[in-house]
């Protein structure tokens, strides 16, 4: 029992190192770009909003407001898309008996989670240093929200991986679902200021709940009308359980 857990940890660790190498290349600049890409995208949006003279929908800092949504959404997107190809691009690895398909998912999860942990830390502490953000009101909520995003991204990514391996056309279908998330996840607005008809639709988006959770964690006076912690958490846990279950019972047919 302990041996098999240790074996699994060893395998996932080796795979994570390999993934790191494959994702970022040999140069350190690869890692630099991965970390600074979301930072650039937030800066771009801040500049754009500043130029057209718009105020932050909440608080005084546009950068902080965008970051709470963009970093969450980016983490989710990275996970769901990168996990989708984990099975197909690691097929050759399965010739080593101790590497099972879910290990490739765990490896990608740990790499992406670590990368985003670094991104979040750098970005938020950067904002604090230049005075564009204050210290989060409830830091523990940020951690819960981050972990929930990881869980949700993992669940969706794992299901994507199974479906994509079955039929590669799934990537196009997945895009149809993923594309509107940028507009449905409260990047530019707070859902409480939206008309109730819109909120009734928006609240089905689990990412929006996590974004609201992050904002409640950051701002001391942010009160979300939408946030229901049980929804994203329950959905994520359910998806992970379903994905792992389906993966296991269909493994024979898929390999």
């Amino acid at each position, binding site marked *: 029992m302990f041996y098999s857990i240790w074996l699994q940890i*060893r395998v996932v660790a080796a795979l994570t190192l390999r993934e790191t190498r494959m994702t970022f290349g040999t140069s350190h600049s690869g890692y630099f770009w991965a970390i600074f890409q979301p930072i650039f995208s937030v800066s771009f949006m801040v500049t754009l909003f500043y130029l057209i003279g718009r105020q932050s929908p909440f608080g005084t800092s546009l950068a902080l407001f965008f970051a709470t949504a963009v970093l969450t959404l980016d983490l989710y997107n990275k996970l769901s898309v990168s996990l989708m190809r984990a099975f197909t691009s690691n097929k*050759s690895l399965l*010739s080593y*008996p101790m590497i099972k398909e879910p290990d490739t998912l765990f490896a990608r999860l740990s790499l992406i989670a670590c990368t985003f942990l670094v991104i979040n830390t750098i970005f938020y502490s950067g904002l604090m240093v230049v005075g564009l953000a204050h210290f989060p009101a409830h830091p523990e909520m940020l951690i819960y929200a981050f972990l929930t995003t990881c869980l949700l991204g993992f669940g969706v990514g794992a299901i994507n991986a199974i479906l994509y391996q079955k039929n590669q056309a799934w990537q196009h279908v997945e895009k149809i679902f993923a594309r509107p998330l940028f507009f449905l996840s409260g990047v530019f607005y707070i859902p409480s200021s939206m008309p109730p008809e819109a909120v009734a639709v928006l609240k089905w988006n689990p990412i929006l709940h996590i974004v609201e959770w992050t904002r409640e964690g950051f701002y001391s006076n942010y009160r979300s009308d939408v946030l229901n912690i049980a929804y994203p958490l329950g959905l994520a846990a359910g998806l992970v359980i379903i994905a792992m279950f389906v993966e296991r019972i269909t493994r024979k047919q898929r390999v």
Partner: protein
Amino acid sequence: MIAFENLTKIYNVKGVKKVILDDASYRFADRQNVALMGHNGAGKSTMMRMIAGIELPTSGRVRRTEKVSWPMGFARGFNGLMTGVENVRFVSRVYGCNTDHVLEQVQEFAELGKSLNLPIETYSSGMKARLAFGLSLAISFECYLIDEITAVGDRRFKKKSEQALKDKIKNARVVMISHSEKTIKDYCDAGVFAYGSKLYHYDDVNELLKDYRKFC
């Protein structure tokens, strides 16, 4: 111990059903070097992959209490974009070996010199085979699975591999697929013949070869 228990393996590719094994129970004689023979397409490589644990049986199970290698003789598990060194490191990490120690042994055996620091995709198939073979020798297994290994490399390297393998099986054993009668006689003490979705055991390799000549 390596044993098949009520093992059935059926392939169903594009509507064509192929029965590799039909409710076969077979125990590979302990500590013996076993030859696995059969005609082309009898499913020898599939059985080897099931022994290794890469492929799952349709029903039944494989019992395995020794440390079994991956099927040697093909370099599928390498990543072309990573260098030889990185690939070796990865595999030794997965197997929980000392990476530097394994790397040293592979360097010495495979004689790839500086090429070891180049991506695998730049290697010739011979170089890849050298690396794969060197790597499987550097990690200690109790049972080596060999799928037509001797067809690899130039004359000198073949000789060297043969010697290295013979040294290895002093403390380990092999399960070997080969169509070469000489190789089988050289290495194996016992044999199993795959025929008509069943397995037949032979204590004497010469008997196995006799039947092999008759049926294949």
